[in-house]
């Protein structure tokens, strides 16, 4: 398979540069090998070839110094032009902040004030487990499907602001023609302008730990008006989930919802049955934390544990998700604390520790900077 031309002006030019260089080097290769084989065939002792004794020819050496230089210049020119075009991130009509986590992506639409996470879809996640009964071939878009797709408007100049929360990731959708590293503590800029509606799939492209291979990216490019509709829809849902947070949940609701969340978010490390994977991923089945006092447990889940793969889910999940997952783990795998955690509790804590990133200051200053 060759590289795909992609669906943005940039990806097109990258494709052209790629083909151009590929053809040139192929020709060079063919010529060099041709010379070698001719010599190997003609000048072999078995054919009685007498060895000439020349060992030098300034003319020849000058020629094969100069010609490669010229060839390289020919390749460098288009490369330079395309690169300069890519590096100009100005004039964005829309800014999306992308944050890599171990092992999922977070997308913040700075203008439309949307904010959601996007992780490997359930089926792939199930099929990829070692010794899973579900074959990859039965899952469509195995490892290349997510729970929440990134919906983008076509024919719009979009600037991506890439960063990471834990380790370095790299955001790559081949059809856009580039990848950019998402580096913790730094923000990288890159832009795109998608010309054709469609679904474009990519993957994390920088080793980021055990599930590096399992944090795909799926873009759904739609016409601008459809995009607006989608935004509106998302806003509705968030309001809906507001009220979800307010109300009191029943134990069964929490346990049911908790199981879903647990399998999507926690099971890859702590395993479906909470047995974990020693020593890196402790078992939850009758662990001190999970059966211990609630505060410590909540704190661990919300703020993570440094130096381990245990991430801070505090800002990553909805209050009801965290509450449910906690309730579920405290009352499953033989853990029978009987505790119940309500979304409202968690919501409270979240407000307390909202990180500066999504505080008004951050957004405001972006507007300011938009040229």
């Amino acid at each position, binding site marked *: 398979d060759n590289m795909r031309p992609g669906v943005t002006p940039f990806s097109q030019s990258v494709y052209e540069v*790629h083909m151009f260089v590929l053809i040139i080097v192929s020709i060079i290769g063919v010529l060099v090998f041709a010379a070698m084989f001719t010599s190997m065939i003609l*000048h072999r002792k078995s054919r009685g070839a007498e060895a000439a004794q020349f060992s030098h020819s300034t003319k020849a050496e000058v020629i094969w*110094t100069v010609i490669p230089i010229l060839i390289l210049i020919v390749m460098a020119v288009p490369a330079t032009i395309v690169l300069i075009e*890519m590096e100009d991130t100005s004039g964005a009509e829309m800014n999306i902040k992308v944050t890599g986590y171990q092992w999922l992506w977070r997308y913040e639409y700075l203008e439309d004030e949307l904010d959601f996470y996007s992780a490997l879809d359930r089926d792939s996640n199930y099929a*990829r487990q070692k010794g899973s009964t579900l074959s990859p071939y039965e899952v469509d878009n195995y490892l290349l499907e997510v729970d929440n797709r990134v919906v983008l408007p076509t024919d719009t100049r979009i600037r991506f602001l890439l960063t990471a929360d834990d380790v370095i990731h790299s955001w790559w959708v081949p059809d856009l*023609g580039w990848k950019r590293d998402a580096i913790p503590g730094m923000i990288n*800029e890159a832009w795109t302008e998608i010309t054709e509606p469609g679904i474009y799939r990519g993957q994390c492209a920088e080793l980021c730990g055990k599930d590096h291979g399992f944090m795909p990216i799926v873009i759904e490019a739609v016409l601008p008006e459809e995009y607006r509709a989608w935004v509106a829809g998302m806003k509705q849902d968030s309001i809906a989930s507001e009220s979800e947070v307010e109300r009191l949940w029943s134990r069964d609701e929490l346990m049911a919802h908790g199981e879903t969340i647990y399998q999507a978010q926690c099971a890859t490390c702590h395993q479906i049955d909470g047995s974990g994977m020693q020593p890196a991923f402790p078992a939850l089945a009758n662990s001190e934390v999970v059966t211990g006092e609630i505060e410590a447990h909540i704190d661990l889940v919300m703020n993570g544990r440094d*130096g381990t793969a245990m991430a801070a889910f505090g800002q990553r999940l909805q209050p009801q998700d965290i509450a449910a997952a906690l309730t579920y783990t405290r009352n499953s795998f033989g853990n029978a604390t009987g505790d119940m955690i309500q979304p409202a509790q968690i919501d409270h804590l979240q407000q307390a520790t909202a990180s500066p990133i999504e505080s008004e200051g951050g957004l405001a200053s972006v507007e300011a900077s938009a040229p």
Partner: protein
Amino acid sequence: MTATTAHDEHHHEQPTGLKRWLYTTNHKEIGTLYLFFSLAMFFIGGAMALVIRAELFVPGLQVVNPEFFNQMTTMHALVMIFGAVMPAFVGLANWMVPLMVGAPDMALPRMNNWSFWILPFAFLILLSTLFMPSGAPASGWTLYPPLSLQGGNSFAFVIFAIHLMGISSIMGAINIIATILNMRAPGMTLLRMPLFVWTWLITAFLLIAGMPVLAGAVTMLLTDRFFGTSFFDAAGGGDPVMYQHIFWFFGHPEVYIMILPAFGIVSEIIPTFSRKPLFGYTSMVYATASIAFLSFIVWAHHMFTVGMPLGGALFFMYATMVIAVPTGIKVFNWVATMWRGSMTFETPMLFALGFVILFTIGGLSGVMLAIVPADFQYHDTYFVVAHFHYVLVTGAIFAIMAAAYYWIPKWTGYMYDERLGKIHFWCSTISVNVLFFPQHYLGLAGMPRRIPDYGVQFAEFNMISSIGGFAFGFSQLIFLWIVIKCVRGGEKATDQVWEGARGLEWTVPSPAPLHTFDTPPIVDDRVAAHSESLNAESRP
């Protein structure tokens, strides 16, 4: 070869058994130690590669967990680079450089012993991490922070193992430089030195300049992890990308450390079997030197996607592309050496020719990678994996194989089994292309590297690659058998060994006695590998 050198007549009493190998100061014995060590590591590292290929045979996870897969990737690379390729080249230098320049031994024999005997301990530590509760390092051989800092107990051990390897190669390099600059026989002028000696002299400088920087980089990792420094933490004013700059400042020269001696080997073998002097000797020397120089100003071509300023990206792209010129000169000189020669195709020649062709393929894909906008697509895909295996496996490893076949008669006094040698060559060459060529397509089709599982659209090529991998792996068992057979005995080798061979190493008996050139030989154009009268013309 143990057997033969031990029964060497003209020599004072020698400790025997293990002691002999622990205490030896003899460049030939130490060279032998290096070579066997390297062979062992090649198999261990290869076995890890086969684990990788086995897991990637079909989509889905069958053999290992993702965590362990990453450990295999990391260890495979570390073992192959620091355990297989580098010690092999140092071993060859130990054996051949003194023979080629007419020296009685290496300049600093005691330190020579130390350089080697640090290695087994370093790898004892490195490999032991596989059995630690936290498992071996899993952040790739490049050990990028912050990921590498998440490593468990094994982390500190890995860092110190790397320190030891660094100490070992630095001392080895110092020894080689001292030997070449200070131990040459009368008349062995610099421009009479065989190219293998030249390339190693320059490689040694790369080692001395590069390894300490690696030591510094991993030391910063260590302090960031255990002593609260913030070199690679933006919150404290550092930058994770800073590590990548320091690492690759070592890392790129490192890849040329793994190829320059190979260039030297091929430049010895092709003239011998073309029965014709090396074409453009002097330009070869200059080309090697310029490659070495350039290798220090291209490092960021491994980091085009970290988001560096435009000017930087352009500079590193141009600088990287320029390296194609001196390398090209070498390739063309080799072709010109063959041209109108009188060639025969014994196994060393076959591997040398395989090297020239397949390395060139790897080099050409390297030039593609240097094109920044295109690298935005290629980076961290299997296209890169294909590139560096063409230059490392069919480059470095093929050259080492060629050297082994070329010189083993001199080492053991016996000819290796030519028929098996040819079989080994053809099995390796065919299977290695089945193994790595499809990886170009995988990369272009969008398969990232360092993943234990992949979408079904990548299935076919991965299966082909894995089949090639096992075929290539097991082909190497043929080599193992050939070596054992040749050490045990066989057809006696003449001192000259190869009809077209020139140079001092062919003037000593086969097997080379434990002590050669106790009184330095007088070198003139007749015995020199490269007579100055020839070089004279070849000065531009």
